[in-house]
């Protein structure tokens, strides 16, 4: 029973990782940029979600505003930050992104204050008991959202013309451009979708913890980098599996090996070992 509960808790944690990391890996797959500021959009969305919900009393409105705004800000970041430095050495974009993330974190603190925000009455906290396991609605919704969003994403990528064009651009931008797929539009799309995913994750985490702080993006900012490497950079399916696996490993690790390594170290020990054995990650990189 405990094992099942730990496993479920791991999946919940892993689902939040997955939603953030998938957006990041989409961006990496297309542009080879380690987009640390992605975690800044995650925080932005959490703030917007809470503020709008508290103001207008509607969580759905909060989610919509958060998702759209973060998506647009993501596109703007691409246009103003990454596009001009795409052909520079990879560390340039990485450090620019880190700088941007630090600045965003500070802006959030200056605008929203250092104490963090909470929902004035947190939605989706009602407890559901399934086979003796107590779960909050927001926990169940996190897992469902993960499945649904990634399902929709997979459907778009596999079944729609837009998705096929997008994957073609990842494969061979020059050829796909010659068939009329505008690579710039694909980049905008990927940044919008990736950032919107981060936004959903931000609101979900806000619901799970009822606390939105300026520094809440710190853990996702580096842990999702580890995840996308484990999942094979650019590989969406691998990223999903790596996220869930890491969530579960952390859940068990916290209880059974917490004395040796803390949660972050568990993730990175796992990463270093995997990369030493298989330098390209668990799954094939694209």
């Amino acid at each position: 029973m405990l094992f099942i509960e730990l496993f479920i808790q791991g999946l919940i944690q892993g689902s939040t990782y997955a939603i953030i990391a998938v957006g990041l890996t989409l961006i990496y797959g297309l542009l080879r940029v380690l987009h640390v500021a992605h975690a800044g959009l995650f925080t932005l969305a959490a703030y917007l979600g809470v503020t709008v919900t508290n103001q207008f009393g509607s969580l759905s409105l909060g989610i919509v505003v958060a998702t759209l705004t973060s998506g647009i800000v993501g596109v703007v970041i691409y246009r103003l930050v990454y596009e001009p430095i795409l052909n520079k050495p990879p560390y340039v974009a990485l450090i620019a992104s880190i700088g941007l993330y630090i600045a965003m974190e500070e802006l959030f603190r200056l605008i929203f204050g250092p104490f963090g925000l909470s929902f004035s009455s947190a939605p989706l906290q009602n407890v559901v008991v399934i086979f003796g396991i107590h779960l909050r609605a927001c926990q169940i919704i996190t897992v469902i959202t993960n499945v649904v969003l990634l399902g929709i994403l997979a459907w778009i990528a596999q079944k729609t013309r837009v998705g096929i064009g997008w994957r073609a651009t990842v494969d061979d931008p020059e050829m796909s451009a010659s068939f009329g797929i505008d690579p710039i539009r694909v980049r905008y799309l990927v940044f919008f979708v990736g950032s919107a995913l981060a936004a959903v994750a931000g609101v979900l985490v806000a619901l799970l913890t009822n606390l939105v702080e300026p520094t809440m993006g710190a853990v996702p900012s580096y842990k999702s980098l580890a995840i996308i490497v484990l999942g094979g950079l650019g590989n969406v399916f691998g990223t999903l599996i790596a996220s869930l696996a890491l969530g579960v490993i952390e859940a068990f690790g916290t209880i059974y090996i917490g004395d040796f390594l803390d949660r972050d170290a568990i993730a990175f020990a796992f990463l270093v070992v995997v990369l030493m054995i298989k330098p390209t990650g668990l799954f094939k990189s694209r």
Partner: protein
Amino acid sequence: MMLKISNFCCGYGNMQVVNHLDLEVKKGSVTGILGANGAGKSSLIMAIAGHVEIKNGSIVYNGEDITSCTPMERVSRGIALVPEGRRLFKSMSVYENLIIGGYITRKKDSQTNMEKVFDIFPILGERIRQNAGSLSGGEQQMLAIGRALMTDPKVLMVDELSLGLMPKAIDICYEVIEKLNSLDMTIMLVEQSTKRALQASDNVIVFESGNTVWKGSSNEAKKSSEIIDSMLGLRNH
């Protein structure tokens, strides 16, 4: 006249690969482009498709100057390319490759075109869900041609049709070229196999180091030893 190329130079960066070329391609004809490796054959058709920088001269297509058009605009006007090495989207299925080929056409046209492609290459219809990367060499070449046909092009340019293929697959591909030609499609072939090229084309042009060394009808070409010598590097000896 389908294509009229005059005083044409192209290249990469500050390297010029094709020098002062003049070429006219008649509607419904097959033009073979011959020459040793590195002579500039591929660069020529890549430049016509818009992938290589044009340094000088002009390309007039169907009476319209397309020298400064983007690759996509050329595709939409009916110039299709089967690039060297095929450059399929290998992690994607046959179906998806074809969809991309017809990306700029309307969805309905895309459907009819795809059916046409399956008529020409039934094997692709059978492998519709398979990944392009897992096809055999011959099938990949068919898919590359099929993908180019998805826009219903008027001019089809094929780079190194027979490269790396089994003889039987080459035969099939050439049959398709003939068939397409019989449907009034204009075709340009870059081909290493001189014999094949001479059989399949109406006219040939022969390159050496970016310069045109011979131009004329295939029938004349078959009699000329110059072409063979040029291909074998024996011309100056």
